[in-house]
């Protein structure tokens, strides 16, 4: 499982892109992973056309959750709120490109959860649940 910590992940974890809190911002949401105490706080600026113009992430967590937030942030910058809607768990996991056990999956997906709930509300995230 050491390949969970490949170069790119460690780089993002140690040098998170878009780290910080935007003030003011248009979208703000924070969530926790109750099982391990990970926390992620997201702030976004969205222009009138629905395009994401700035991102700020901040939180506590393991390398996986930090890297996932950093990589996801890079990915969505410049996209529209509509374009992000179709982004799935699999998109994010492919981006990370590492083998993840179910409990670590929660760490990896926390960033996507915060993003989706922040943009579309709790129901939208629920729909992605399997069974």
């Amino acid at each position, binding site marked *: 499982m050491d390949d969970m910590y490949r170069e790119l992940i460690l780089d993002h974890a140690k040098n998170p892109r878009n780290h910080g809190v935007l003030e003011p911002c248009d979208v703000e949401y924070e969530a*926790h992973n*109750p*099982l*391990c105490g990970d926390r992620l706080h997201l702030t976004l600026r969205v222009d009138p056309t629905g395009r994401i113009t700035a991102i700020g992430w901040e939180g506590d967590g393991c390398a996986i959750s930090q890297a996932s937030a950093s990589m996801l942030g890079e990915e969505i910058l410049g996209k529209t709120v509509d374009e992000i809607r179709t982004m799935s768990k699999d998109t994010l996991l492919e981006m990370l490109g590492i083998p993840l*056990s*179910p*409990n*670590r999956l929660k760490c990896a997906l926390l960033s996507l959860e915060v993003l989706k709930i922040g943009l579309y509300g709790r129901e939208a995230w629920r729909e992605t*649940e399997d*069974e």
Partner: protein
Amino acid sequence: MPSESFGGALDVVGLRSDFPALQQEHHPGVPLVYLDNAATTQKPNVVIEAMSDYYRRYNANVHRGIHKLSEEATAAYENARVVLKRFINAASKREIIFTRGTTEGINLVAQTWGRTSLNAGDVVLLTEMEHHSNIVPWQMLAAERRLRLRYTPLRTDGALDMDAFRRLLQEEPVKLVGFMFVSNVLGTVNPAQEMIRLAHEAGAVVVVDAAQAVPHQSIDVQALDCDFLVFSGHKMLGPTGSGVLYGKRALLEAMPPWMGGGDMISRVGFERSEWNELPYKFEAGTPSIAEAIGLGAAVEYLNRVTMAAIHHYEQEIIAYALERLSEVPGLHLVTPEHTPHGAVATFTLQGIHAHDVAQVLDAHGIAIRAGHHCAMPLHERLGLNATARASFYFYNTLEEVDRLVAGIYAAKQTFSV
């Protein structure tokens, strides 16, 4: 293990070989005839093995562990939830709460939904045939909250009096309707779907005690439209300490938690805490992990046999049992002979107390139950102190019915009646 699913008829002899307890002699030279299935069923090897395998190979606490053992235990535990969800066709696995059994499930509903939704003067409508586990929790809540308990009476043929049920629903506003799907004493199968529809029309929430239904017939909670449904794992090939509370998601979301502790919280501070999402909100502390895995294995076994085949075969065996028993002089069938009914045959014998019947049958290798079967109010209503009950499962045979009847004749001889 049944290697393929059965279309219709059961290979009972083949299935029996999956159950180690059924292979034994009860006394030297006397094979066991186990007819106490309504109390608890025997377990197939696959269930015992599923639990031993957990303990031998990937025993670990669930949900919080990063190591491989904990990952595997968590996956197996949550997989069991999905197996159970499919088995009763719940809309979401979040609606499946693992419990110790039927009793804990009903108490959970009474102490969370009940405590927040029922107030002084509110009516809780049960039936006269309920098991203690669907009476006492409501009596306790009634004493605390000054609720009013009402009971739908029985007809003389042992069925619920549906006219009275309708009337009771209309006479005064009923907040909760609780009833058993299948009686553990009479075998009566209540018209659950209709009762739920009527209760909902009257604005009541419905709790179904399905302890004697889920093991014996295919159940679809979405088709039934019940609000809560509870059952025990140990009565359907699963281990002791296992059971399920099904609840509609919106209701469960709105309910306060019951027990506080690990896993059911999302954050704990010194002053206050936030609850975790479903189903964890209702599963405080280390859950019964091996038990959930064992119950999942039991359900997978039942799925292979198919509930349709089980139900069909059991209808055959209970019809034969009631017929044979009704021929015994001095035997009074408490189980009504009308259909549909579950696989229990309850009776009294003129001149012999039920305990003594059970004792003599035990000497002949036959395990039945005697007493009030946790339904004292029903027995009082029937004017009976104790009854003898033979209850069947799909692994029982027609020959075993014959041995039961022969044992009853032996008891009559011992007591010269």
